């Protein structure tokens, strides 16, 4: 961390948690919300059943560092891709996107290629997820700084 960016990067990481499809399995997302909060992050939960458009709108309006997407219903390849495409169409490149849920290994390379990292499965320790989000947040904050 260099001196001139210190102030900006020290603000709490702002993360939007979202399930961008029709998937009501919300046990995990509430656990994550509480864990992220306890780790000092500023957490927004998109609520149930948001469309990919609504997720991107909220992310932009709330000026988040990271969108954390989760699905347990097998629709991640379609729904996560839709979120990435909408971000691209809106010209957003300084919000990091991470994923998680029931994601088969064979889908992970394709998600990584879209720019979605993490893709954590069941049983992942919370600390691993938190570290990854903080890491991605630092990346995008550096990017933003270079733009300003």
């Amino acid at each position, binding site marked *: 961390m260099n001196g001139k960016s210190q102030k900006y990067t020290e603000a709490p990481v702002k993360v939007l948690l979202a399930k961008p*499809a029709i998937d*009501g399995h919300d046990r995990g997302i509430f656990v994550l919300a509480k864990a992220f909060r306890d780790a000092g992050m500023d957490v927004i939960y998109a*609520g149930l059943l948001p469309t990919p458009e609504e997720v991107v709108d909220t992310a932009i309006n709330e000026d988040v560092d990271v969108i954390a997407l989760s699905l347990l219903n097998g629709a991640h390849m379609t729904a996560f891709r839709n979120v990435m495409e909408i971000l691209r169409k809106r010209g957003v490149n300084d919000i990091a996107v991470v994923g998680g849920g029931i994601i*088969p290994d064979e889908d992970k390379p394709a998600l990584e290629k879209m720019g979605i990292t993490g893709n954590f499965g069941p049983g992942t320790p919370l600390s691993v997820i938190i570290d990854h989000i903080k890491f991605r947040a630092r990346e995008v904050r550096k990017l933003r700084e270079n733009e300003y």
Partner: protein
Amino acid sequence: MDNFWDMKAKEIMQSFSEDKNYEEWKKNVLNPWNNKTGYKDKRRENSSSMPVKELYTSGDLPKNDQTGIGNPGEYPFTRGIYPNMYRGRNWTMRMFSGFGTPDDTNRRLKYLIENGETGLSIAFDMPTLYGYDCDSKRAEGEVGKCGVNVSSLHDMERIFDGIDLSKVSTSMTINAPAAILTAMYFVLAEEKGTPLEKISGTVQADILKEYIAQKEWMYPPEAHLRLIRDMLVYSTEHVPKWNYISVSGYHIREAGSSAVQELAFTLADGFYYIEMGINAGLNVDDFAPRTSFFFNSSINFFEEIAKFRAARRIWATVLKEKYHAKDPKSMALKFHTQTSGYTLTWQQPLNNIVRTTIEAMAAVLGGTQSLHTNSYDEAWALPTDDAVKVALRTQQIIAEETGITDVIDPLGGSYYLERLTCEMEVEAYKYFSEIEKMGGILSAVKSGYLQKEIADTSYKKQIRIEKGDDVIVGVNKYVDKDEKPINTLKISDVAEKGQIRSLEYIRKKRDESRVSRSLEKLHKAMEDDSVNLMPYIMECVRNYCTLEEISNVGREIFGEWKEPKIY
């Protein structure tokens, strides 16, 4: 002032006495032993944060144990609802199944019947559960993924192709659009020439637990409750063997609740439905016998068994004393059980067979009427044929090899189990009282109180796992460095494309004027709260109106619903 629930809790607590035998043993035998060996015991508790002693003795039994425990087939049914339990007939082995297209599911159902399954249970995909057709924008990527897709009567015809509805009982796990899927099943029976009096089965239809836990709804609570009332009344009058509701704790537990919370919130929902039937002008004994329940069986063995027994005793007591039921059938709580999906681990998946076996045994020792056992690969995906077969065989081994079924309620009289059953009852009564003070279950749901209680319990559990206080073998202890991938069931996008094509065909083939006429009639009927909607929905279904078209009539009239913020 004490309400009904406070008084019941007090009654049970007053039946406990001091356990002098235990205290003396602890002082004279256990403590000196621990001191000598340097063993430091720590406080232990179950999933409901109830302390668990190291030993239970006869002093732990309630003073009224003869009347409280009673006999099988007799009030208060603690030891089981039938006099002969599994000596008469084993529980129904009912494997929850559904994926891909209706044809895929039809093949899986026939495979299970060939392998000795005794009842059907249909799992629907997310679009169906939320009342969207397969060609809806919102359904994109989800068709057939978590269950089978049903967009019109045509799909139900395919699921049950070649299956005699008078010979099987069918359970349908559907809630928000329950009235529509029920109507489809009834119309399907008509088409097959099976009289409605002959069909049997269960529709889940428990909307309260949707707001509490599973989060699948279309309209505000009052609108769904009206539809449940209509199903209840229609079934009571026309489909006598149909269980119009399965009051479900399963999802409450999966969402993160403790065993006690599952017990309390589920029964509180059940009491609400009983009051709804009474308020609709029915006699409690005319409809209460067709109320059924659905519980989770998780990994804390004795806690689960105690939960099932406590559920039966509470239901019997409350139906008799508060709702003045006279028919013992109204007081007998019958239930389906599913082993816990939450306890399945992605890591070292074969260990899940063992977990499922233990949970299935708890369900059987708890006196379940039907059982679904999860497959070992379900933390990865929907199960393969091979994995489902192991899960079904698990039930068959328990039923036919172990001797567990030879004796009715073999654990009855266990000091620990009987005491735990009583203590869980007390905890449940405390929750009922709290819910009543909040203005009833509907207020407790709308305010997000129950949802918050569950999320808090679930977070505490996760922290215990992270710290290693709670062990999960293969996840936070005895971890393998390299997890080898297993063979899983793949559902390709072909299912989605196939369903969309099939729906297009139905839309072309049907009589559009009949479609719009029946939808208009339904619209009109919905506007008048006193009208029973079931005949109108059945008319729409007969004319091949789609699931979403029928659901949308309600969306127009009742509007949508946004959950209370709990985070």
